[in-house]
């Protein structure tokens, strides 16, 4: 046990267990309740989180909110069956009741005892700190007001500015019957600016934001208020000039960074262990096969320092890792939690995540990105006679069974004769995951990660994620504009 884990364990015990009169030994007893007859695995997940949000409108910080959440989730598994119960009280009674409830999923069989507890030693991917305390309330208000001033000064067309600053301090402790005991303290902060511009009766929005797993003070030191305000105005002004987007199949060039949402939707979800165990993914049974063009290497990497999607340990206590999903176009890995890994005879990959103690963990992405290639971004644009260059997106979705995915551009341009010309209105792009990845024909040398804004939703649970990619060319994708 390193000294950091030891001190984090003390902190977690103090925050999570002590108020309800519990200590680490009480976890053995709690696990005992969940390990009913026939249960082959059980875990306890303790969590407490503090969320703070400040928002500015009309040049004033008119509202701010603070919330405290927490409790314990108890899971008991038998084969493919899972029993789950939770309580927002962390007490011996609550552990007994939730444990008995969860283990009721099966009623007969051998009663196991928990393996000897071993503290998971994982490398810290971010500092285990409370990110909310590093900046005074006055400083938080000042940052938001700065964003307002910068945005309004940037252009007379700016009519409305909203800005927000949010932060979460989260403490988790996992204790599982396989001996796992892990603790994590996860900071997460974000700053966002959104503007409305109006010119000649036309109205458009622009927005920018970002953050990561670090103290709020770093947002100030990185001068994000000014940077995101300018970026939001720039994007809104571009959209004021936008013409109708074309409709139909054409080459699409995606910019570096946030457009990596393509990978999240087109391949990421389809490579989550649960869908592949159940055979419901368009990628099921294709391990070792070619699923993308040569040169395409995609990884899911929880180990990046301070990134929004990073995790020192996942929500089952498995250390975060970097998993290669596609290597040079060949499918090489799935993202796994313990349940799906066990049922597929594979190893967990540190991808078990849950929205909170009140939700069941599932295999989820962390930071998903494509490695850089050799091409010069200018050459990529230059290779397209008529197509679309999309640099920012609003969001996406995938049907993992049919493989169809969409993502919606919020800043895009026409490419005509190898040159970027007019901006076009936002349009949804649609394709088929495995097919689209086979149409990647050029990969830039300019890998970028997004600024730290992603939220991924699956079965109603939202978790923070990251994406990234270099500039990419897909030879053909359907562009959902209005000009046919």
């Amino acid at each position, binding site marked *: 046990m390193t000294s950091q884990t030891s001190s984090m364990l003390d902190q977690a015990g103090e925050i999570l267990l002590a108020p309800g009169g519990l200590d680490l030994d009480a976890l053995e007893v709690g696990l005992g309740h969940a390990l009913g007859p026939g249960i082959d695995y059980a875990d306890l997940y303790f969590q407490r989180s503090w969320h703070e949000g400040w928002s500015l409108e009309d040049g004033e910080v008119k509202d701010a909110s603070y919330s405290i959440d927490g409790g314990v989730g108890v899971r008991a598994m038998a084969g493919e069956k899972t029993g*789950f119960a939770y309580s927002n009280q962390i007490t011996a009674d609550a552990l007994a009741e939730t444990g008995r409830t969860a283990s009721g999923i099966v009623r007969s069989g051998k009663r196991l005892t928990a393996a000897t507890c071993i503290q998971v030693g994982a490398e810290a991917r971010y500092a285990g700190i409370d990110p909310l305390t590093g900046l005074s309330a006055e400083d938080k208000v000042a940052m938001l007001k700065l964003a307002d001033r910068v945005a309004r000064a940037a252009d007379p067309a700016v009519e409305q500015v909203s800005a927000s600053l949010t932060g979460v301090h989260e403490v988790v402790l996992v204790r599982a019957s396989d001996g796992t005991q892990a603790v994590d303290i996860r900071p997460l902060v974000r700053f966002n600016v959104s503007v409305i511009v109006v010119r000649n009766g036309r109205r458009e929005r622009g927005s920018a934001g970002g953050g990561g797993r670090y103290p709020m003070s770093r947002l100030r030191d990185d001068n994000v208020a000014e940077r995101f305000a300018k970026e939001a105005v720039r994007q809104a002004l571009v959209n004021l000039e936008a013409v109708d987007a074309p409709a139909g199949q054409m080459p699409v060039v995606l910019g570096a960074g946030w457009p990596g949402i393509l990978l999240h939707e087109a391949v990421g979800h389809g490579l989550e262990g649960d869908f592949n165990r159940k055979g*419901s993914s368009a990628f099921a049974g294709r391990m070792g096969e070619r699923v993308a063009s040569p040169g395409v290497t995609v990884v899911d990497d929880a180990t990046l320092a301070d990134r929004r999607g990073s995790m020192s340990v996942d929500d089952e206590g498995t250390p975060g890792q970097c998993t290669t999903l596609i290597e040079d176009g060949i499918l090489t890995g799935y993202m796994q939690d313990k349940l799906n890994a066990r049922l597929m005879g594979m190893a967990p990959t540190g991808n078990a995540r849950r929205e909170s103690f009140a939700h069941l963990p599932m295999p989820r992405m962390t930071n998903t990105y494509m490695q850089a290639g050799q091409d010069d971004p200018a050459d990529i644009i230059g290779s397209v006679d008529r197509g679309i260059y999309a640099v920012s997106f609003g969001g996406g979705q995938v049907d993992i069974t049919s493989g169809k995915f969409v993502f919606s551009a919020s800043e895009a341009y026409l490419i005509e004769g190898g040159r970027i010309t007019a901006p076009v209105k936002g349009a949804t792009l649609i394709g088929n995951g495995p097919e689209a990845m086979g149409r990647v024909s050029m990969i830039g040398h300019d890998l970028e990660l997004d600024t730290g804004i992603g939220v991924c939703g699956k079965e109603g649970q939202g978790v923070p994620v990251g994406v990234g990619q270099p500039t990419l060319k897909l030879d053909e994708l359907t562009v959902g504009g209005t000009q046919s």
Partner: protein
Amino acid sequence: MTQAFDAADQQALLETRAEAALALARRLGADACEVGASVDQGIGVSVREGDVETVELSRDQGIAVTVYVGQRKGSASSSDASEASVRDVVEKALAIARYTGEDPAAGLADAELMATRFPDLDVHHPWPLSTEEAIELALTCESAGRGVEGIRSSEGASLSSGEGVHVYANSHGFLGGQRGSRHSLSCLLIAEDASGMQRDYDYTTSRDPRALRDPAAVGESAARRTLQRLGAVRPATGRMPVLFDPSLASGLVGHLMGAIAGGALYRQSSFLCERLNTMLFPDWFSLGERPMEVGAMASSPFDADGVQTRDNVFIDQGRLASYLLSAYSARRLGMSTTGNAGGARNLRITAPLESQESLLARMDRGVLVTELMGQGVNGVTGDYSRGAAGFWVENGRIQHPVEEFTIAGNLETMFQGLVGIGDDIDTRGSIHTGSWLIDEMTVAGA
């Protein structure tokens, strides 16, 4: 494995907590205060391939406090509604109000608007369901679906049943409580042929378990919907009419409500800014809400400000007759609240209705859309571009399934181009509507 839950006891407890929070806030210096508190509990089971997969018992509670000190505001909440937690929450809200700026529009809704009539809206029907019974219903549903020839496998059937209590109180002396229940059963199936795998689902949901559809019928219709999608191809690119099925047409109503919501209007973030009293739809179309409808999904006698809800008409014979306003957004716009803090409740359409066959015949050639993907709706400009799947229609009849295409247009022109509404009304959600036929959109496919 059911948990004891006495809604009356829970309501009394929440009311005590809310009143304690109000009293404490006043004592600690708040000029006005409002409190929302809730507790919900439920069971969820899922089965897959004939066996139980998960059993989840949930119990959630929360308390949220907003205080006003002069015209400054602070909010705090907690998932723990215990006495100690209430004190923390009130103190934190007051601490925040020291740093927020003056907002002339801040404050409670006017005292004389507080709800005084609380009729029983018949929305609380707890289901004393054992885990075994819940599993059995889900298994019946799934097995009926799996039994249909051509279904390859199942992603599972799920049954969830829950009830809850919500209390809202403010320093005008208003105290309102609402109990409610919701039960749902759904089934998601997979079929496969040479062209690949397809999945689709069906569900039933209701406040009263007796109003749920037969579990086997839900499984069978999920199977039918899934099988219909096999062999889907991409439609041709072009401009053509689009028929939205009822579950998607209610989404179009949702976009309309988003655009006439006070928050979007005062932020100038709506394509319908300054359009009050102008024609948005054909003159045969009206849309209103019935917040006091007995037994309906979103019924409530008071809104999130404590204001008495009322039957609003938003679209009157095609004309935008009212915005959707809370006390705060109304003040921002120099108007009066419409009792819509928290949204619209039980939206109902008044229009001549026709059969789907008739709508298809009028469409002649185009696409019937049964699924939409992605978020490509821009509320600021009304620009609309979304991924879709559905059926190709030619000579007024469904020909074959289509997928991997987009439909694009602008909500304002789509609303003006509404040419017919189906009698196939989907009553599962808070918005009740049949199919919508839009005269022309751009389809991008092959």
